[in-house]
């Protein structure tokens, strides 16, 4: 389509200037609103046209190729999902031992009882959705506490880099990491697996297969440091074991995050199915929220609209002191968001090390 022709543009702008449109002709605006163009930006022919650029894969009418390997040929040669994950994320075929290890990790990740992803999948299922919506929603449960693989991995990388730069021993680096992050959900050491040997078994398997490397070694030091620093018994947990193994298999923290979130999503598909089979669907308004679970303001009359100014309380603060007073007061209003602090940054290169939590 391109820009509207000059005559029509001028005519429209003239009419609008005469009519005036709210504040759009305010002298405070750094532009003359009534000089603006209409229509879409013409096609840019000075640059190459848009293409879907990918290092990962391409396809044509007759083949699908990932990192140079035809995927049908990969299957015909006896490879499977595990190997294609290495191909897609690392552009390489894994060794037999690496394949075995990732297989092990994925089995361990497939099911986790009624934890957040399964709960979300079941909640979505009850609205009578497609199964894929529920599986997608379940993946969104992975954050920087539950399934905090990126946060864990990026932190490990950060301290390993620091170790090199500051010529620290592995033990010293682990001690610093623990001192800075002892109570963080992504430490990989906690009291969650004191009775369950699964995390230790996974690390032992990695060592037996010869795929254990610097991350497992470092995580073991982190466990020792955390055990010294903690007042309660703690040990390696599933996050710590799984993430360290994945990093030693050569996956980046973000690749680990996505691979394991997707792996868990298969399990949540089964939860979707079971939820529908057992409990059926919910209608809008069907579920009640008992008053005994409510701790907000007491029931009160709605003020007549004509009296609103009597009851209304402006949020506009005229001074920093006023602002601070209101801010603190609002922290008591649950659900207002004033007691949460976040630093939302671009997670392109790495994610999970920003502060996200309660004030």
């Amino acid at each position: 389509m391109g820009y509207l022709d000059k005559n029509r543009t001028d005519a429209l702008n003239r009419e609008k200037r005469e009519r005036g449109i709210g504040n759009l002709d305010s002298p405070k605006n750094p532009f003359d609103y009534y000089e603006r163009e209409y229509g879409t930006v013409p096609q840019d022919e000075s640059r190459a046209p848009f293409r879907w650029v990918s290092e990962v894969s391409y396809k044509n009418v007759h083949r699908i190729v990932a990192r140079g390997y035809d995927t049908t040929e990969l299957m015909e040669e006896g490879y499977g999902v595990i190997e294609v994950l290495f191909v897609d994320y690392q552009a390489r075929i894994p060794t037999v031992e690496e394949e075995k290890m990732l297989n092990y990790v994925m089995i361990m990740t497939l099911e986790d009882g009624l934890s957040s992803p399964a709960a979300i999948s079941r909640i979505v299922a009850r609205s009578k959705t497609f199964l894929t919506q529920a599986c997608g929603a379940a993946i969104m449960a992975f954050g920087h506490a539950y399934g905090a693989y990126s946060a864990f991995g990026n932190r490990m990388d950060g301290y390993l880099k620091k170790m090199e730069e500051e010529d620290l021993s592995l033990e010293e680096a682990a001690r610093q990491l623990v001192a800075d992050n002892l109570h963080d959900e992504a430490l990989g050491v906690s009291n969650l697996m004191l009775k369950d040997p699964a995390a230790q078994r996974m690390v032992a398997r990695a060592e037996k297969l010869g795929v254990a490397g610097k991350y497992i070694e470092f995580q073991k030091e982190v466990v020792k440091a955390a055990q010294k620093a903690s007042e309660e018994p703690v040990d390696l947990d599933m996050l710590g074991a799984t993430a360290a193994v994945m990093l030693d298999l050569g996956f980046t923290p973000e690749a680990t995050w996505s691979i394991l979130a997707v792996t868990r999503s298969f399990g949540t598909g089964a939860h979707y199915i079971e939820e529908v089979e057992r409990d059926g669907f919910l209608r809008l308004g069907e579920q009640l929220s008992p008053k005994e679970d409510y701790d907000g303001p007491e029931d009160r009359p709605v003020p007549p609209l004509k009296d609103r100014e009597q009851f209304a309380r402006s949020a506009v603060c005229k001074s920093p002191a006023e602002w601070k007073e209101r801010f603190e007061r609002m922290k008591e209003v649950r659900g207002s968001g004033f007691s949460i602090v976040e630093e939302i940054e671009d997670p392109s290169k790495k994610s999970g090390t920003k502060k996200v939590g309660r004030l």
Partner: protein
Amino acid sequence: MSREPTLKRKTALSYKTEEKTVMRGYSLSDLAEEGYSFYDAMFVLFQDRIPTEKEEKMLKYEMGVFLEHSMSPSAVGAIGVSAGRPNLPVCVAAAVSTFGGVHGPGAAHGYMLNKYLEKGFKEGKTVDEMAKKLVDDYMDAGRPVMGMGQPQHIDSDPRAEPIHLKQEELELEGVYLEFQRALEKYFHARRKEEGRSYVGVNVVGSGNTALMEIGFSPNAGWCIGSVVRGFSCAAHALFNMKKGRAWGASRNEPMVQMIDLSMIKYVGPEDRIVPKQEERQEYAKKQKEEGEYKKWVI
């Protein structure tokens, strides 16, 4: 710290205690230690059984070949969402959620086969007869026959026939493959008879047939297919997040970007004056009377 689940439910899938996580009665850790594959675990999860070696091989093939599909709605969805730089799982969730009535409609294909198998069983018809009936019913009604045709692989999906062949090689031919093969035969014959171009079986038609044959329900099969694609979509999103530009609109890139302003083609109503509030009622009534707006209603 409370370790109570957010949602309390009776479930036959799994339980998790301080000592272990158990799926369908099997300790997950023991399954992994014993050397079972991830594919085996999918049978345990969805079917409550350990599969035969051949069934395990079939699932391995099907999942592997479906994992990566370069630029499909799912990958494009993941890349599109990644442009705003949310957390990576959001991109993957969007990708998996693109699977619906057209993109990878595995469950729809499965339910279609089951419906006609059931009908044939009740009416005492053969599989071949029911396949013909399905093709005729769908094509007479102008409905797309699930599992046939792919908009990019226009003359044959490179994954489709090899999946059928693998199923035959593994001697996993059952009622579903018989039905699907017959369906394809009648579908091709009818299109030929009508002078229409050849449309091959797609990966849903062959892959889902294999999944159903090795015992997965339509939704379980759909879950397996849709979610396994999530792995590659995550890689596409990650590539764009790590090596591409946020927003996909930079004018400093040598190539015009995905949502560069010049990519927009507008075909809606012409630019027009916004009526003042005092003009509104009369303006709105006139608009309704004239009815021009109706052609834009979506």
